């Protein structure tokens, strides 16, 4: 029986995360000898993030979802992620470091997490802002991971920049955007895609970053979009563009928006509202104010239970954002162009949120 133990806190002797990071990074260096190293740099929330991948197959885990944020910048990056797999390189996951009686409560400057399904080992040095991530086989990474790669590391890194990873989408226009907040099944993806096809710009449908500050902001992470297979028929022009047709209907249908709508992705925007979708079954769409606690209940729990290392600080950050940016129910109608129009009008007419 696998015990559910938070990896980042421990009592008693445990393995040294700093030693674990060193071993994982050494293994990355060995992997690169076999595969060569390819690099890409992306701008996330205005910060440069460099991926150093042990081979093209490994780069292929992250580049499709992040490509809309690619930048050509040779300056020293804010975050470096070394990414490798055992299948391409022939290098196994290194043996675990020995128990270290001095590790005690865990070195808080190094974070680690192991996802069992799919298998992903992530370790992050908060001081140097360097992470190493391992998967067993780049070719076997499932599509739902390809849609939102490196969530764990990007969550940890973004926290150190005062940004909060949230389970939500966003769409916008002219530098202004709305967060689409709610758990799976609420209609975020349908709303986001309807808005994209209705002429708005796309920041994501599943995860984005939000930031407080003088002007609350929302930042794109991934250009992927996913829909339940049964909902794809509502978007006939998207059907032929599905990336993972071979996985349907067992998995959600997935697209990379920038591949087909490259000018319609948006990296960052000022947040002017939080919309909580609700499927009504009616034809028309309306947008009505709600109390911020309702938006908090829609946004925070699904965010926090999914993110390694999410804690009271995460919840407080989400609360602070919702205390500034007004919340609404997006009563989503079946007329999807009409939904897009309603959201567009909202984005254009909502007042700016100021300090």
């Amino acid at each position, binding site marked *: 029986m*696998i*015990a*559910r*133990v*938070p*990896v980042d806190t*421990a009592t008693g002797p*445990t*393995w040294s995360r700093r030693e*674990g990071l060193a071993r994982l990074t050494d293994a990355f260096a060995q992997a690169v000898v076999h595969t060569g190293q390819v690099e890409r740099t992306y701008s996330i929330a205005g910060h440069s993030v460099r991926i150093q991948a042990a081979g093209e197959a490994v780069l292929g885990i992250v580049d499709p979802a992040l490509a809309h944020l690619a930048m050509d910048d040779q300056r020293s990056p804010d975050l470096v992620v070394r990414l490798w797999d*055992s*299948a391409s390189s022939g290098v*196994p*996951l290194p*043996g*675990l*470091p020995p*128990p270290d009686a001095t590790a005690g409560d865990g070195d808080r400057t190094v974070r*680690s*997490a*192991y*996802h*069992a*399904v799919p*298998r992903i*080992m992530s370790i992050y040095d908060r001081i140097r802002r360097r992470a190493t991530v391992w998967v*067993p*086989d780049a070719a076997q990474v499932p599509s739902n991971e390809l849609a939102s790669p490196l969530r*764990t590391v990007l969550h940890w890194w973004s926290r150190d920049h005062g940004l909060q990873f949230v389970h939500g989408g966003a769409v916008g226009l002219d530098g202004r955007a709305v967060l689409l907040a709610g*758990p*799976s099944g609420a209609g975020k993806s349908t709303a986001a895609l309807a808005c994209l096809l209705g002429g708005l710009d796309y920041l994501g449908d599943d995860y984005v970053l939000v930031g407080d500050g003088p002007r609350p902001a929302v930042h794109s992470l991934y250009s992927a979009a996913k829909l339940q297979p049964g909902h794809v028929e509502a978007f006939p022009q998207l059907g032929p563009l599905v990336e993972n047709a071979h996985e349907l209907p067992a998995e959600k249908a997935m697209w990379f928006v920038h591949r087909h709508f490259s000018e319609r992705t948006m990296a960052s925007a000022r947040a002017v509202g939080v919309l909580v979708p609700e499927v009504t079954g009616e034809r028309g769409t309306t947008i009505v104010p709600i*109390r*911020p*606690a309702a938006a*908090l*209940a829609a946004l*925070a*729990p*699904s965010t*926090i*239970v*999914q*993110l*390694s290392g999410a*804690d*009271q600080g*995460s*919840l*407080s950050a*989400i*609360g602070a954002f*919702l*205390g500034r940016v007004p919340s609404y129910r997006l009563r989503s109608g079946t007329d999807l162009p009409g939904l897009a129009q309603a959201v567009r009008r909202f984005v254009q007419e909502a007042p700016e949120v100021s300090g």
Partner: protein
Amino acid sequence: MRRDVADRYRVNQPTVLHQTIEGETVIIHLERGLYYSLDETGAEVWEGLAAGRSSSDVADHLAARFGSDRAEVGSAVDSLVDRLRSEELIVPVDGADGADGDGVAIPSAVLGDAVPAPAGARFQPPRLERFGDLQDLLLLDPIHAVDESGWPERRENS
């Protein structure tokens, strides 16, 4: 009136997270994958308890705010406290001074001198709603599944 100094609680941290926004509270129980909302009266009770007030003090305060019958308010507060305990959201603390509260600074408008409720407002028993729709998410994605030494079990030399 007997003030029972043993009747103090603290938030069941770090397992339980909470956030009050415009007078309503959202609570998340990380281990069980459940989340809750408290209406405004419930949020006042919660914030009072989290600040280290006894449930008796909290009931006194609410009865004064609404000009309501102390016994009726006390019974409603006790009911909520029982429910919060059974859901493992709060745990009792010992100690004469009950100083194990959350340390959250409570502005006096929330729980200091009793600010009278708006004219005509009547005390309504606090409401706690529970939501279980995320439990499957927690069980399906064992982010924290590790062996006892904290490293994944290596099953193959791939």
